[in-house]
């Protein structure tokens, strides 16, 4: 287990290193000089040159990459060009919106999908199963930002139960904050729930076809016990993989939904930063998201290897 963990950890580190290099060098070839952009159209050549010097833009590319990398290793993501505050501070301000939103959406999608998956697998081939599966096909096809628009129209514009957008901040208390996040979370959760329900159903059906399930039935166990005790546990492995992937997707997927609801989250931060050519902020957020994906996948892999020793030899 220790050797397996070490090997996986090495892969994680290499992946992060290469990903950071990709982000850095892709943004390096971006048209537009950040110094000129900051100073505006009327800036003199001297001023631009001085600012470039001050920002360290005249250093060789490799030197800048290495100093950025070593900074990140120490938790220093650099300083934003437009806001003149540390990038970590900007991210910390925004993540208190994006992270709860992603978690809320993940919780909602799991709470909808798992029962639907179990129900449809247990009643395979019935009308309820067919109807629910048709529903999931529809759920996958609905663009979440369109669903968000409808939610806003029904619950914010017409019924006025919740605000149409914006975020009051957690200082206002838990309830106002949650109220602002509930519609975006539902919009994000719907397509995810549809995918997850299908995965849960097919995983459960596959497990139900196994020999040990037939044995359990043959020895006279009630169908419910076979389903809940024997099948469900084994079927949860693929479900967990998708959940791990979905968390990362939700965190990044908030970028468009935040746009619909005017939420000051990571997505909005990246969007503004891209438009202002505040590249160091863009780099920081993208590396953070890629890091989250890689680390969540790593943890899911470890959980498997812990549960199933056969996987450790790979």
């Amino acid at each position, binding site marked *: 287990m220790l050797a397996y963990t070490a090997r996986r950890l090495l892969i994680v580190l290499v992946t992060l290193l290469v990903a950071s290099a*990709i982000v850095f060098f892709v943004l390096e070839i971006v048209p537009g000089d950040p110094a000129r952009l900051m100073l505006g159209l009327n800036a003199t050549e001297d001023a631009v040159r001085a600012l470039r010097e001050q920002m360290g833009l005249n250093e060789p590319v490799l030197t800048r990459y290495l100093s950025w990398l070593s900074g990140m290793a120490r938790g220093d993501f650099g300083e934003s060009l437009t806001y003149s505050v540390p990038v970590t501070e900007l991210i910390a301000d925004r993540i208190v919106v994006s992270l709860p939103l992603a978690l809320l959406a993940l919780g909602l999608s799991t709470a909808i999908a798992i029962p639907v998956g179990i129900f449809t697998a247990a009643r395979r081939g019935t009308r309820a199963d067919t109807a629910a599966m048709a529903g999931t096909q529809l759920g996958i*096809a609905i663009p979440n*930002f*369109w669903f968000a628009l409808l939610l806003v*129209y029904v619950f914010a514009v017409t019924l006025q139960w919740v605000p149409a957008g914006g975020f009051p901040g957690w200082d206002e208390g838990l309830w106002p904050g949650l109220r602002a996040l509930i519609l975006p979370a539902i919009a994000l959760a719907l397509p995810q729930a549809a995918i997850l329900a299908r995965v849960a159903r*097919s995983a459960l059906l596959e497990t139900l076809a196994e020999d040990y399930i037939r044995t359990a039935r043959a020895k006279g166990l009630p169908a419910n016990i076979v389903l809940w005790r024997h099948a469900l546990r084994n079927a949860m492995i693929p479900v967990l993989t998708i959940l791990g992937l979905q968390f990362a997707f939700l965190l990044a997927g908030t970028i468009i939904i935040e746009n619909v609801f005017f939420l000051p989250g990571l997505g909005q931060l990246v969007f503004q930063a891209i438009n202002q050519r505040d590249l160091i902020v863009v780099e920081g957020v993208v590396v953070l998201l890629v890091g989250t994906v890689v680390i969540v*996948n790593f943890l899911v892999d470890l959980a498997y290897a812990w549960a199933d020793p056969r996987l450790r030899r790979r």
Partner: protein
Amino acid sequence: MTDHLVAAEHEDWRLFLKKARANRSFQAGAAITLLIVFIAAVSLIWTPYDVAKLSIPDRLQGPSWSHWFGTDHFGRDIFSMIMEGSRNSIAVALIAVGIGIGIGVPLGCWAAARRGWIDEVFMRTSDIIFAFPALLSAVMITAIFGPGAVNAIIAIGIFNIPVFARVARGAALSLWPREFILAARASGKGPARITAEHILPNIANLLLVQGTIQFSLGILAEAGLSYVGLGAQPPATSWGRMLAEAQTMMAIAPQMAIAPGIAIIVTVLGLNLLGDGLRDVLDPKLRRER
């Protein structure tokens, strides 16, 4: 010899049709997809109204006989705009799939044929690309290199490459140890020729199914990008942009948001059904792999 081959192909085709007739998901998907393609083709030569012409007196009408889906805030016919927009969605998603297949499949086949460190490097690289949140990266690419349909195609296409490469590699790997490949090697064919003559024809079905799925994901991605203003630019019409404009009119004309949304849903649904149906019709063994 050739006659025999033709007869065999004929037999395959008949079997395909027989299975297709029994598969409702395939029929529904194929019908919807053909309808959308038909609408896009018709829009090239004819739309009920000219979408470039503004007609303020007719603005914000509800659905009627003269305007099936109503009119927008400039008095443009929404049905005509949906027709025009279908072209953009199909073109962007289709070319993005083409990029994925054109670059991904050769890479995947190459990795499967060579194995060893090339394969290892290939797998790790695709792991890294998969770690990038696709939508965020697409937003980044289009925002930085300039919004527009071409950059949207590239941004979506890049993330199709590892998908097709993985599918091609996995399928090719399972074929290489088979007897007919061994026979081809024994007759002196090299890896490139074996891949072209024996591997590709045998993985084409799988690629077709994956292509349909990526096509539908591409439609959704394009809609998302043009919704945030990074896809097709005016005067081109796109479903995502129509939704963005509808959002500003939400309080007074919510019906503007309905038609483009339904258009996206129907197209994606049709392609997904077609993909599911194709998978079942082409090879029942594939059913378990998703």
